[in-house]
């Protein structure tokens, strides 16, 4: 019974500014979704709505098809792990982990096992932990919650690369062991791209794109070659970024190149390269980007 997620015409204002404006989004249950966006794009706001941390100014937030706000049956199975965790800093690590037992689904044994594996000092106070260990504690609490919807908001911050790697590994293992819905919000897109099934890009309080990860990986292309030829081949396509060096031009397009264009490109001596999700994301959310979408 993994939880699906849906927002209908959701707006959230902080004072006069729209943190999210008129967002409609549905995420299927039982999948790992990536939530990408620049700082201040509205990622945290979106997750806060799904965890009933906040109430929308307008619109409807449904989790598992039910309104999430103050819904005990839903929120007891929804976990939002925010960067740095929501802890009482004067508590010990051990007591903090045990607080997780407020959820009936919390698995204390699993939490203890993870704490040992990630070398968390149980007797230390939370405010004595390094930033990395603090993030680990947050991540462990999220995994052990065994919720039906688990959201990690930039939880990797402060973790070193091996720890991040171990966390993603554990997350994947937990996910395969017990299918549930996961939303990963992150800047380190390339690190998580392979773990994702769906990708949502948020920009300026709106959903910029939402698709399967393959759709993103298959679409973009970088064309490099004689400037005139590149212009001719990319005519009519959405060009995300251009770069010029002498007579050579490199253009990044967001769409899949059809066979005809590929052939023309090859004939004109244009090299076609792939665009990674990270690059695609950077281009799509570039504030200087020409607005070409309808």
């Amino acid at each position, binding site marked *: 019974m993994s939880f699906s997620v849906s927002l209908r015409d959701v707006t959230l204002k902080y004072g006069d500014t729209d943190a999210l404006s008129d967002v409609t989004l549905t995420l299927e249950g039982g999948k790992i979704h990536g939530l990408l966006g620049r700082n201040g794009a509205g990622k945290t706001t979106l997750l806060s709505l799904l965890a009933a941390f906040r109430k929308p100014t307008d619109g409807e937030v449904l989790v598992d098809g039910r309104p999430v706000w103050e819904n005990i049956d839903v929120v*007891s199975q929804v976990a939002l792990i925010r960067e740095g965790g929501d802890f*009482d800093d004067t508590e010990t690590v051990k007591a903090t982990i045990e607080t997780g037992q407020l959820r009936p689904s919390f698995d204390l044994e699993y939490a203890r096992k993870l704490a040992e594996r990630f070398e968390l000092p149980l007797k230390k106070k939370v405010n004595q932990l390094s930033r990395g260990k603090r993030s680990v504690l947050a991540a462990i609490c999220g995994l052990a*919650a065994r919720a039906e919807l688990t959201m990690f908001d930039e939880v990797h911050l402060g973790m070193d690369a091996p720890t991040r790697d171990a966390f993603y590994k554990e997350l994947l293992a937990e996910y395969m062991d017990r299918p549930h819905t996961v939303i990963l919000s992150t800047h380190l897109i390339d690190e998580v791209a392979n773990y994702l099934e769906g990708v949502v890009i948020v920009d300026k309080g709106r959903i910029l794109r939402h698709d399967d990860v393959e759709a993103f990986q298959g679409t973009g292309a970088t064309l490099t070659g004689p400037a005139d030829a590149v212009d001719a081949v990319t005519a009519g396509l959405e060009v995300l970024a251009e770069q010029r060096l002498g007579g050579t031009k490199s253009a990044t397009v967001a769409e899949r190149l059809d066979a005809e264009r590929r052939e023309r490109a090859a004939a004109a001596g244009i090299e076609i390269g792939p665009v990674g999700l990270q690059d695609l994301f950077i281009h799509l959310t570039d504030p200087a980007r020409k607005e070409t979408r309808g």
Partner: protein
Amino acid sequence: MSSASLATRRYRLGTELFTASAKYFAGWILTVIIAAAVVPLIISQYRSVDISAWAIAANVGKYLIAIIAGGYVHTLLPITVANGVTRREFAAAMGVFGLLWSLFLGAIAIAGFLGERALYGALDWTQAIQHEGDDEVAVRSFGDALDFAAIYPLAYLLYFTAGVLIGAAICRSDSGWLILIPVIPVTLAVDDAMTSAGPWGPGWLVRFLTGATDGWSLWFSVTVALVVIAVGAWGARRLIIDSPIRAKQA
């Protein structure tokens, strides 16, 4: 797992808050109890003891209870909501905790006054609550002590409610601290009405606020206190169940 454990979770959380707090503050409470006996003993070496040390401790306790209650709401609301608890459950848990906590500390206050009566009686000191010019209002028997102290559990609950209300208002809105303006005078006035309606008026409280309550009988004052607590609790609950969990400061 079971929905039964979810249904009773709020009460469990309330009692757990109580036991954890009692444990956490046990050292402080013990220190105050010892100090309230030792300080007059030291003073008695230099001059005669003519004031109830415990009355001071028990009164300062009121403000500490309010501060602790407000602090709890402020720190624990985000943590409990992050652990999948609804605001309604948290509000109920704070209610359970407040009742137990006020009764517990109120019982200690009463026991303290009785104990102090025994100590002061044995050493022939004056267990005075206040001095007004040459008049002194003092506890002179165990019956007096009980009379004076009996109101403490309710007074503590009153201050607890005030603290929760202030903490909840601050969680609810950035300008929530403005609620201090009505809450502080009302709380002080009702507390003062309850004590001065008996023979024990602590005149050092802001008298000008409380002129209106001078004619109140004890039972009328207690009824007013109960109504104020109920309204305060209702208001605090309303604020809590509507509070956003804010973005964390980086």
